[in-house]
């Protein structure tokens, strides 16, 4: 076994082993339209993930009255479940709005997309930065 730089045991990769090497991650398991399990959410109503030119593009729709607020498109970084896996099960993205920014970090668990949302305000409105988590199901599978 070759020794690689690591800061925890699970980062050690067996180069001469039976397990497949990691590297290129496929995004199919993440793609599609994901709708909030809470129809009365005041946070994110739905997210849409598509693949374009080898990248994963995220569209988010925030809860607003009378219609959801389209946050626009941002690229998402995708992650597998371990260093040997080639299937994406998580993603992260950064949404910048000027007066605030939002880190989104999401993973799939038992078919549900769990999105952790980190809201940071930069407009001196006095609002506190806050964390929330919401759950989404896929509509187009």
């Amino acid at each position, binding site marked *: 076994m070759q020794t690689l730089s690591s*800061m*925890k045991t*699970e980062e050690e990769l067996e180069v001469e082993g039976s397990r497949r090497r990691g*590297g290129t991650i496929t995004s199919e398991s993440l793609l599609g339209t994901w709708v909030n399990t809470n129809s009365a959410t005041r946070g994110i109503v739905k997210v849409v993930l598509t693949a374009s030119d080898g990248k994963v593009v995220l569209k988010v729709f925030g809860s607003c009255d009378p219609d959801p607020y389209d946050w626009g498109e941002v690229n998402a*970084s995708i992650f597998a*479940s371990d260093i040997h896996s080639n299937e994406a099960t998580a993603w992260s993205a950064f949404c910048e709005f000027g007066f605030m920014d939002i880190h989104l970090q999401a993973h799939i668990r038992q078919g549900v997309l769990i999105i952790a949302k980190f809201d940071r305000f930069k407009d001196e409105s006095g609002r506190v930065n806050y*964390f929330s988590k919401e759950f989404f199901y896929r509509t187009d599978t």
Partner: protein
Amino acid sequence: MSQYIKKVKAEDRVESSILNRTSDLSRLVGTWVNTNHATRGIARVVLTATNGKLFISVFGACDPAPCDWGKVEADTIYSDNISSQNASAFTARYQFDFGKTQLQANWNQGLLVVGSFSTYTDGSGRSNYFSREFFRQQGK
């Protein structure tokens, strides 16, 4: 009475009476030990506060002794909702010579839930990956 402020979702709207509050870090500060003794990920997280700033020390599961990742300041501290003074989450970044790890952690029912997004830049062939682990506060 609510005042008009910019928002991208309904929950960003708040009552003016709760604005400009400072965060209480006490719920996060302490030594947090992985609930899984056999973890191959993060063994322990130590959170300290100095002058309203939150600092993170991570110890990875390594043999024979834990790997000390060093001490970094939290990028941002978050409350559990827009009306709360209780700090309950943070994000932090570790940069290594072979890659980087983004940490996102939140307090939930007495546990610290830590999500790690590891990215490799050393051409080792390792997949970037996500993991999520649970930590209990030592001594409580």
